[in-house]
């Protein structure tokens, strides 16, 4: 019987043959932390006063969550992190404006195919787009790995999602992953690895794969991974990095569960408040008035996403009752979008542009909602209170739907605009 991606990667890291369900100790290739590094530093220092990080070269710290600082308390956290970075000689430090950690990590070549990356952020699973075994941990565990260099994993079972066909116009990767989450449920892939296989995988752009892998956690998955292919090679070639450790499941690998999706069957969908798996076809929600549209985040803040929205917004105006907020995923993606003319289209349509970063996604600043307001967002979570106000409602959609709805002032099917 063949082996899954998860079994192969963890076997190699553990240096022995392993089976599903077994506990293994491994040394992750990189440990990502972000603004929460200041709290992690506190834990590190109280455990090993004046101690040194075991492998400073394996740390990656990205300031992105509340950047530029929204208060002096946030600023003090950032200051503490910069001091620690200097003291410990951490080279993979990316200060405010570089971008969202999950965009910056691949851009800096830190999420290589076949490697293991952990991060004190649940959306660390995004790197599965690059054939990387990547998963979220808490702050305490990050502090522990800074000290010891290692951690444990229970070798997961795997869910296989087979993809065929291609998307119709106006439909994109976000509609696919929301549809899958709606079917599987918020806990349906709990503790499991998710693999994406099938003939359609080769046609998915890197940005599509990132959108899909990013939301693996919203169905409970430990990792959500794609095979490395020609697009993966090109991505790393552009960074002058050669792929050496890519690995993938055997054709006869045994899966705990298998699902199939034909991309040409996918329609625009909306995840309604207050759960990501509360997914309905868009026609059930069209006409819902909205107060704010948020285009961005680690799910949908890349140049391709901004372009999909700009293609719909070009020559049109954002509805007078709607604030449209845009946050590019990184400086690099921002520049790409500028060169494509996308930023001019967005600004001319009336959008407000934020610096690269998480923006209002986590409800700390830059577009917090008022009680009773409705926001249509391209982010990955619509939990109650997520955007700073528990009496507000968050609806999740693709960039295409976000753009069409921003013009209409209400939830609108992007296929109607594209016709």
């Amino acid at each position, binding site marked *: 019987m063949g082996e899954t991606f998860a079994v192969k990667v963890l076997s190699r890291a553990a240096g022995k043959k392993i089976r599903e369900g077994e*506990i293994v100790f491994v040394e992750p290739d990189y440990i990502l932390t972000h*603004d*929460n590094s*200041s*709290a992690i530093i*506190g*834990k590190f220092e*109280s*455990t*090993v006063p004046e101690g040194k990080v075991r492998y400073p070269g394996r740390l990656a710290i990205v300031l992105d*969550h*509340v950047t530029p600082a929204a*208060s002096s*308390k*946030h600023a003090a*956290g950032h200051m503490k992190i910069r001091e620690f970075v200097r003291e410990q000689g951490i080279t993979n430090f990316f200060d405010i404006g570089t971008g969202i950690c999950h965009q910056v990590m691949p851009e800096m070549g830190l999420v290589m195919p076949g490697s293991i990356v952990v*991060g*004190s*952020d*649940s959306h*660390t699973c995004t790197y599965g787009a690059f054939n990387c075994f990547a998963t*979220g*941990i*808490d*702050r*305490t*565990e990050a*502090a*522990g790995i800074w*000290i*010891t260099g290692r951690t*444990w994993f*229970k070798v997961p079972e795997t869910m296989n999602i087979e993809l065929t066909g291609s998307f119709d116009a106006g439909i994109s990767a976000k509609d696919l992953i929301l549809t899958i989450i709606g079917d599987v449920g*918020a*806990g349906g892939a*709990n*503790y499991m690895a998710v693999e994406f296989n099938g003939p359609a995988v080769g046609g998915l752009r890197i940005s599509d794969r990132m959108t899909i892998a990013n939301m693996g*956690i919203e169905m*409970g998955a*430990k990792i959500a991974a794609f095979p490395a292919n020609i697009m993966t090679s090109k991505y790393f070639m552009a960074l002058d990095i050669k792929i050496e450790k890519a690995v993938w499941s055997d054709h006869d690998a045994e899966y705990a569960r298998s699902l199939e999706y034909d991309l040409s069957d996918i329609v625009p969908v909306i995840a309604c408040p207050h*759960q990501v*798996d509360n997914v309905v076809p868009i026609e059930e929600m069209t006409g819902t008035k909205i107060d704010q549209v948020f285009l961005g985040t680690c799910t949908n803040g890349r140049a391709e996403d901004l372009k999909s929205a700009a293609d719909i917004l070009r020559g049109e105006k954002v509805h007078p009752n709607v604030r449209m907020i845009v946050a590019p995923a990184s400086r690099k993606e921002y520049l790409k979008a500028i060169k494509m003319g996308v930023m001019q289209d967005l600004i001319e349509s009336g959008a407000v542009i934020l610096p690269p970063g998480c923006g209002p996604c*986590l*409800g*700390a600043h830059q577009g*917090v909602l008022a009680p009773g307001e409705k926001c249509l967002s391209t982010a990955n*979570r619509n*939990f*109650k*209170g*997520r955007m*700073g106000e*528990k009496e507000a409602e968050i609806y999740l959609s693709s960039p295409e739907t976000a753009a069409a709805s921003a013009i209409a002032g209400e939830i609108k099917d992007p296929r109607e605009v594209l016709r």
Partner: protein
Amino acid sequence: MTVFHYPQNDINTDLLFPGKYTYTCSTGPEIKEHLLEDLDPAFAGAVQPGDIVVAGENFGCGSSREQPSLGLKYVGVKAVIAKSFARIFYRSAINQGLLLVQSPEAVNYFTEGDEVEVDPAVGKVHVGDRVFGFPPLPDEMLDILKDGGLLDHIKKEYIIGDEA
């Protein structure tokens, strides 16, 4: 001993601790002020050491923020009994030394007013007049839990060990 019963599934980390406070509250007292704020605003004022939380499926889903597990440990919650737990929360609870009991049977049997007791050493949970077994943690995790959490475990295993 009070049992706080939240029967719904998929109670997420934003309900347990709102994201807007994650970068300004990290100590026990700071966390307690907002613990379960958007789920049960009365919880933080009422909870006492030794109390128990009973919940549905996929408890703790969402963010990797550790304020939910750290906060529940800080206020002295003896155990969270749920039908199932989200994996990052599950790991985080072990890292904080917070006992989790996965027992759908115990949760289904529970009715308001039932006394609940947990005996982790033998893997038993008492609900009213019934006793339910729950799967014991693997040894590696049990060691962390016994030491009171991951960092205390590391202090014991690595740091004292290195000097010896």
